[in-house]
Structure formats: C-alpha cells, structure tokens
C-alpha cells in the first residue's frame, strides 16, 4: 500500500525537531503544518516576510494584508514577527532556517532538484525555491514516486534545475531515500511504505542506490 499524501506529510513531519524554524513549500508540504508531533514547538517561516504562521482564519476574519507564500489568507500567533523580503531571504540564504520541506518534479541520484518549471508548459518561475535550496541546511523533498508512469528519481534531471546537489532526504508514496553527498552511489533506500517491495521500488526508480533497510 503506497502512502497517501497525508501519510507522506506525516513521515516528513518526523524530520522536525523541537525549536526548529521551518519553511514549507506548496502542495503536500503544506499538510505538514497540521502534523507537528505533540509536545513539539516549531515556528513556520513564510518567504514573503513572516515567522510564526498561524492557521487559516475563520470565515469573515480574513485579512488581505496577511498572507503566506502561496498567497493564501492566514493568521498571526503571539510569537509572530513581520519583516521585509531582504531579511526574509537573509534568513534562508544565511542558513538560519533549520529545514525546508519542498515538492519536487525530479530528483537526481546526486541530489539535484528540479521543481520550478516544465519548459514549454508553464510560465511560472522559481519564486524563492532556488534561494531556499541554496541556503537551508536540510532539504527534504516530498513527491509522488512516479509522474504519468515515469520515475521521478532519475540518474540526471532533464528538467531545469532548482539546485545542484541540494537534496538531503526524499519521501515518496513508496519509499524514503537519503542522499549522501560524495558517496557512490549517493542514494540510500532506508524505508518502504507498507507492503511495498524492494523490487517494486527498484523497478520504478531510474537511479542507482543501495538498500539500507532496517
């Protein structure tokens, strides 16, 4: 049984530690905000200039001046601070944010990440993704293992890169991989979703890796 989107997010939430400053991407990563383990306090960072993000507002209490990086209305909490974009990206690029959990389109076997564009199909942009992966010390990518029948964990990304050798952990609906820079192969398969076999993961992963299953 592959993991659901919520279960992927739940596995990603296990990467959080008490006191962490955390940046979440859009999509599955957003779900992590509601899955912080009990008794743990973390502060969520929003690239548009906020630390300490609260939940969505109640209907009727939305504030156009209070949004997250996905442009959704949110709320502030007692620990919230607001600041300008330069300081916000200084936090990211300067290594002050502890962890970022991001979506991915492709990850290579050396930890390259592609997640900002599909040429010819999208006019979007990298937003803050390149700055995040360049500066945040721990990058966790959460994504579906396959896209339209094609593996997303590949030898080399053929989509434009967001960053080179930046990913530390990959969590998909099938499995969890660690990236160990400088080792050959760099990828280690460390966990499987329930009833998913190593052979099934091997058949659906286009990258070299070693199995280090407990």
């Amino acid at each position, binding site marked *: 049984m592959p993991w659901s989107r919520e279960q992927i997010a739940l596995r990603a939430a296990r990467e959080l530690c008490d006191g962490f400053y955390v940046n979440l991407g859009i999509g599955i990563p957003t779900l992590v905000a509601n899955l912080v383990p009990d008794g743990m306090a973390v502060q969520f960072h929003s690239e548009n200039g906020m630390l300490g993000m609260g939940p969505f507002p*109640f209907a009727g209490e939305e504030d156009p001046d209070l949004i997250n990086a996905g*442009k*959704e*209305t949110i709320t502030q909490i007692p620990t919230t601070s607001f600041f300008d974009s330069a300081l916000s990206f200084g936090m990211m690029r300067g290594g002050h944010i502890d962890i970022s959990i991001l979506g991915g389109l492709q990850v290579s076997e050396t930890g390259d990440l592609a997640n900002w564009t599909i040429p010819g199909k*999208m*006019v979007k*942009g990298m937003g803050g993704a390149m700055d995040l992966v*360049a500066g945040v010390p721990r990058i966790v990518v959460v994504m579906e293992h396959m896209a339209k029948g094609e593996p997303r964990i590949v030898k080399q990304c053929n989509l434009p890169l967001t960053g*080179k050798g930046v990913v530390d952990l990959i969590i998909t609906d099938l499995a969890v991989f660690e990236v160990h820079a400088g080792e050959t192969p760099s990828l280690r398969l460390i966990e499987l979703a329930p009833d998913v076999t190593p052979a099934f993961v091997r058949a659906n992963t286009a990258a070299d890796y070693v199995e280090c299953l407990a």
Partner: protein
Amino acid sequence: MTRKIYQDAGSALAGLLHDGMTIISGGFGICGIPDALLKAIDETGVKDLTIVTNNPGLDGLGVGRLVNSGRIAKLIASYAGENATFAKQYLAGKVQLEYCPQGTLVERIRAGGAGIPAFFTPTGVGTEVAAGKEVRVFNGREYLMEQGIFGDLALIHAWKADSEGNLVYRKTARNFNPVMATAAKVTIAEVEHLVEPGEIDPDHIITPGIFVKRIVPLAHVEKHIEKRTVRERA
C-alpha cells in the same frame, strides 16, 4: 512640512514618467501593491517600460494593469504565474521576461539602494540562472555574481506615513516595499493613513523619510484577496 504631499497619484507622477524607463514596484502577489500609482501610470500611456517586481499581479490588477495595456517591454520578476495575459504575451514574444530568484531579486534591489554594484550569492549555482554570470569560489563553495538594481522610479504601498515620509507597513504587506523604497532616483509612497509628525514612534519607523520624495494619501483603499482560505469553527 507638506512639500512631499500630493493630492493624488496623478499629480505625484507629474514630470517623472518617460518611455523606456525602469520602474520598481513593491508587493507580493496582490498584497501590499501600490495599485493607485500603477493605475495612474497606466492612464498616462507611458510605454516600453522595464518593470521590476516580484510577480506581475493578477489580470488587470497591480502591475497586471500595465500588462493588459501592453505598456511593458521587459519584466524582471521571480514568478509570473497567476497572470494568464502576461503568459500569453510572453509566449507570443511580445514582452521580455528575466527570471530572477526571489532572494536574489530583493538583494539586487537592496544592493542598488545601498551603493553596492554587485555581490556574490550561492543561489542559482548550477542552474540556468547562472548562464553568462561570473562564478567565484569562496571557502570552497561556488557563488554567482549578481548586479544591483537601481530604478528611475520606485512605487511603494505603506500603511502609515507622516509628512516627512517616515513609513510604517502592515503585516505581510511590507514584503518588498521597504527595500524598493531605497533603490530609485525618485520614490513615491501611496499611504493608507497620513499622520502628524510625532504620531509614529521613531522606534517603529521602518522606512526613514530620506528615501521617500513624494507621498500620496489614499482617499479610498480597496484591497483584494488572491486566495481566500478559511477554517471551520470548531
């Protein structure tokens, strides 16, 4: 103490606009955008503009106003999604787009305003953003050289101002505004509330008035929400 204050956006822009100029505009999404100033610029018909902003607003709103009327020659932004008209113009080759990672974009503006012509950043190394840029190694890691940005005109939206041009912003509507206020020959701030000098605690001022040449108190502020997300009451 009223020499910086203008009746409306149109009069604040008088004598400042010319075809081909570079305008930098605050805002993230449609939050904290200087929409009254952008509307007034659109109405003047000035064209071939280079616009520096995080993203081109929504269709017909914010910088999207200038998109719809075809006034932009080049956009420098980190994100151009959520504006279908811009996407259409770009894919048809009618407007140039320079993608700049958001942190690099804001740092280029910060540098431009602080008298720093260029700097080195780790962002974008090994990606298409690095194309044609100088790479240098510091402490064993590669960095890209990026150049500062200084505009002809900066457009800012602030929450509160005094007549000196000291500014305070509100929540995440601050975003790029204080940085952009420092990085142009002339900065105009549209403000929701104009107060007397002394009413803003000097410890709370975010943008000192030295950066603000013209102030437009807004008679009417219409704010929009791009994605309304709410939770149920328990």
